[in-house]
């Protein structure tokens, strides 16, 4: 415990000395530190903060030092997290590499691959995207058809992915491909390749919210060196599932997050609906539903905390991550609906005069939230996972 306090003191003074003062305002969407070769930094301190944190391995605090990580224990990482929260630090690096790919590379990749990819993830040099869903393989992910052929000294990839988050801005992709067409789950492999490889094309998809966070990604005779296969050939499904657990865990830990900008939902409602003589929200029906929502949100936050505590106590990544993804999606959708309802027609502004940027942000966040129960495994698929893996219910024959 004394060691932990020493670590806390050391982390605190380092953070105080190294956190750039210009980052003390709330982060806006175009300031998100995704890193990568194409990154443009509006404020050079965003990059400075990333580099400083990466120099200590604290962008991936618990990864081993030999791969660029911080080498911290779970308890130390928790302390670091608390100290970062204490100074209201912005994230130094937001990264699919840190959240999803890194953990499975640590578990499944060979030594050369770990040495090649992990330090670049820690430093935010390479931005990764996730090649999972296909037009014919959504909820039935294992039905994917992107073909990967063994051409002796390299693999040749042909096919199409969809819903590839930020593929147009990513440098590399971790991609599920079919290496055996005679089997379903046992014919899938997990490969990594550079998005600048000839034959790769990413086209953004415009969503109902007006933004384009996802792409269609096309592969035409893409040549991939064989050293970029992770794990054994045709054994990619285990890696794919493990990565999904990390993805769901990550989605849930952060929640989907509204755009409240620090305002709680009841403050928004009070502003637009008003209060009665007793200081209660004037619309009593809405008030009851807001209270129910706030209680659900608290129950969810307490559950995330409990799952993290269990994880730190060495109980492993629990199948409860599936209930958490399901609950997080529902919660954020409920919140978005309530916010738009509370704001009234003022909450349905699209652009231009008459609407504040926050109001327009809420309209778009509400539309965007409809994807929460689809992305990262639909709510229905997550319920299937809970029913089968946690509750032990069998498949229908």
């Amino acid at each position, binding site marked *: 415990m004394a060691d932990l306090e020493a670590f806390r003191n050391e982390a605190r003074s380092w953070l105080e000395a190294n956190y750039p003062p210009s980052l003390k305002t709330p982060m806006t969407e175009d300031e998100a530190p995704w890193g990568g070769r194409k990154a443009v930094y509006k404020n050079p301190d965003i990059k400075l903060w990333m580099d400083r944190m990466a120099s200590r391995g604290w962008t991936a605090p618990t990864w081993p030092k030999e791969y660029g990580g911080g080498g911290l224990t779970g308890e130390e990482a928790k302390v670091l997290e608390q100290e970062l929260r204490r100074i209201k630090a912005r994230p130094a690096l937001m990264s699919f590499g840190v959240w999803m790919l890194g953990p499975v590379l640590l578990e499944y990749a060979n030594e050369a691959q770990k040495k090649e990819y992990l330090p670049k993830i820690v430093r935010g040099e390479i931005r990764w995207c996730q090649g999972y869903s296909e037009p014919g393989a959504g909820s039935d992910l294992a039905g994917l058809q992107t073909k990967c052929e063994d051409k002796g000294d390299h693999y040749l990839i042909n096919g199409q992915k969809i819903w590839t988050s930020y593929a147009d801005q990513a440098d590399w992709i971790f991609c599920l491909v079919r290496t055996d067409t005679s089997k379903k789950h046992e014919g899938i492999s997990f490969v990594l390749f550079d998005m600048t490889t000839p034959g790769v094309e990413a086209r953004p998809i415009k969503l109902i919210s007006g933004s384009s966070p996802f792409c269609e990604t096309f592969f035409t005779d893409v040549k991939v060196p064989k050293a970029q296969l992770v794990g054994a050939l045709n054994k990619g499904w285990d890696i794919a599932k493990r990565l999904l657990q990390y993805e769901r865990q990550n989605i849930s830990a952060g929640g989907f997050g509204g755009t409240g900008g620090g305002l709680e939902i009841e403050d928004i409602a009070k502003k637009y609906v008003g209060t009665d003589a007793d200081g209660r929200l004037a619309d009593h029906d809405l008030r009851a539903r807001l209270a129910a929502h706030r209680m659900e949100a608290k129950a969810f936050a*307490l*559950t995330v905390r409990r799952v993290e505590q269990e994880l730190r106590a060495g109980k492993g990544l629990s199948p409860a991550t599936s209930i958490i993804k*399901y609950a997080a999606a529902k919660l954020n959708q409920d919140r978005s609906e309530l916010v738009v309802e509370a704001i009234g027609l003022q909450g349905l502004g699209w652009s231009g005069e008459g609407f504040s940027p926050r109001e327009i942000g809420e309209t778009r966040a509400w539309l965007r939230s409809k994807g929460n129960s689809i992305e990262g495994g639909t709510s229905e698929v997550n*319920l*299937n996972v809970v029913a089968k893996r946690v509750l032990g219910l069998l498949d229908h024959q």
Partner: protein
Amino acid sequence: MAILTEEQTMLRDAARDWVQARSPVGAFRKLRDSGDGAGYDPALWREMGEMGWTGVIVPEAHGGSEFGYLGLGLVLEETGRTLTASPLLSTALTAASALLIGGSEAQKEEWLSQIAAGAIVAALAVDEHAHHAPEKTALTAVKSGRGWTLNGGKAFVPEGGAADLIVVAARTAGQPGDADGLTLFLVQGDADGLTRTALKTADSRGYANLTFKDVTVAETAVLGEAGGGWPILEETLDRARAGLAAEMLGTAAQAFDVTLDYLKTRTQFGQAIGTFQALQHRAAKLYTELELTRSCVEAALEAIDNGSADAGALASLAKAKAGETLHLASNEMVQMHGGVGMTDAHDAGLYLKRARAAEAIYGGASYHRDRYARLLGF
């Protein structure tokens, strides 16, 4: 499940073993069928005292083990699983909490040691109508020569019929609806002028209506300060709510486990009904609710143990969430069992009946949503 200490794990395991061996659902069914108005089995209650469960939150100086509310919650969760009917919550948690929070040294010495020893049954008499509303207390206490004189009524008092000691909320100033002007009194069950009428409720537990006709108590019977009852009462109720929520979590978890087992064994159309996705998704949703509820219950109990400022809000959260989840679990238990779930021979009905009573005691979900909103300032 929270990360438990060694003592807590031992306490939970002992409770689990005892409940399975000595107090399965069948024991409660037998008690119900016996028509015994007390609403609990004195022999089982004695055994609970012998195992030290009546002293879990009581300080060592008064004969308890000081294992805290999370510890007692673990026991209540296990007894809740089999619908064990006992005065444990009423005596060892609710009344003991009132004494811990508001009692003088002399009151603690006199009563907490008896509670810890399992020597008495104690109750909290607060509500006067069918809906939980502590501030609406109308029962009056007036200063008289020898102390105080109480007049009025209390309704649906858990263990009110059997209690040797009753903590009574009385109005010494103001009007029903005011939080100010309440005073708590320690009244003995055999006090002159106190009439107790046992109620037969669907959940077959021991509730009584109490009538106070010129019940006179000494000045030393005041718990805390005259007129200063509200903060003690509110904190006591919050602890009772968290404890009851732990019991309800156990009841809901067991209702779910029994139902899940049925989904795996009941065959229709040539296969287990649990292979049908319509039922799988409902089971998965119920499981999700149970996990969320567990987090709330444990957080509320831990907040009480740590003296956290948000213990009240968390108690409301735990009680509301446990109520909603138990409501759903008990309904799904009947529905997923189909016709057999409607029969008296099956346990589903016992869970359903207990669920609704537990949901209402110390405030239902709507009461606590309103309170939660007020605590958050909207």
